[in-house]
């Protein structure tokens, strides 16, 4: 019954989007973390989505998170000579997190998650209606 497959596909999308939301939360939370465990400023992380082709034949593709990559953009430099982490010229390297980008990411992830929930609900009600066939 192929309608059952929708649950797998939609839940894979929900898992992927929630991981994206998680990474966004980490980026926003650390937008001002000037020193991590390695002494360097926090680097923004981004998830990479990948479509998983079906096992056999042609069918819908699930989604998976292929990995979490670090943003290599240089960090923001702020002039603050009194800061304990300021360099010789008085600049502090801040994380390369863009709050605007992260807010956009958050909204996009949340909308996509909602879409998947709706798809799943539709599949559920269709299956329930199919079960009452002939009664």
């Amino acid at each position, binding site marked *: 019954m192929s309608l059952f497959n929708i649950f797998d596909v939609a839940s894979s999308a929900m898992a992927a989007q929630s991981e994206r939301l998680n990474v966004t939360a980490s980026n926003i939370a650390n937008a001002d973390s000037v020193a991590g465990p390695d002494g360097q400023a926090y680097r923004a992380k981004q998830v990479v989505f990948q479509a998983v082709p079906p096992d056999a034949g042609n069918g819908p593709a*699930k989604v998976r998170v292929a990995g979490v990559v670090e943003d290599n953009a240089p960090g923001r430099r702020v002039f603050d000579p009194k800061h304990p982490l300021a360099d010789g010229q008085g600049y502090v390297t801040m994380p390369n997190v863009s709050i605007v980008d992260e807010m956009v990411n958050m909204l996009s992830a949340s909308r996509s998650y909602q879409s*998947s929930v709706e*798809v799943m609900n539709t599949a559920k009600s269709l299956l329930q209606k199919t079960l009452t066939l002939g009664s």
Partner: protein
Amino acid sequence: MIDRLDEFMRFQTEALKLRSTRQELLAGNVANADTPSYKAVDFDFGKALAAATTTKAGTPAPAPELLYREPAQASLDGNTVEMDAERAKFADNTVRYEAALKFLNAQLKTMLSALQG
């Protein structure tokens, strides 16, 4: 006798099967709305239904031929899922699935009342 009943309900059964296959594909498109380079897929329902209902009774219907969707506004990352269009098609397919279900139910009821007299 049974094969006549089968033949009687074949059209709606095949329609229902294809609707559920299409529902699954559209769900896959919605799920991959943010996957870079993902190409949205769909199939020609009319053609697939014609192919499924003209095969000899008892043989399995051929799998519908998948086609890639032509995007109206291509996105920069190579993804061709357009959420609004995909959601509209999903809702449309849901209603048509329910319609096929209703027709099949009515055919069953018709047969049942003929059998019970």
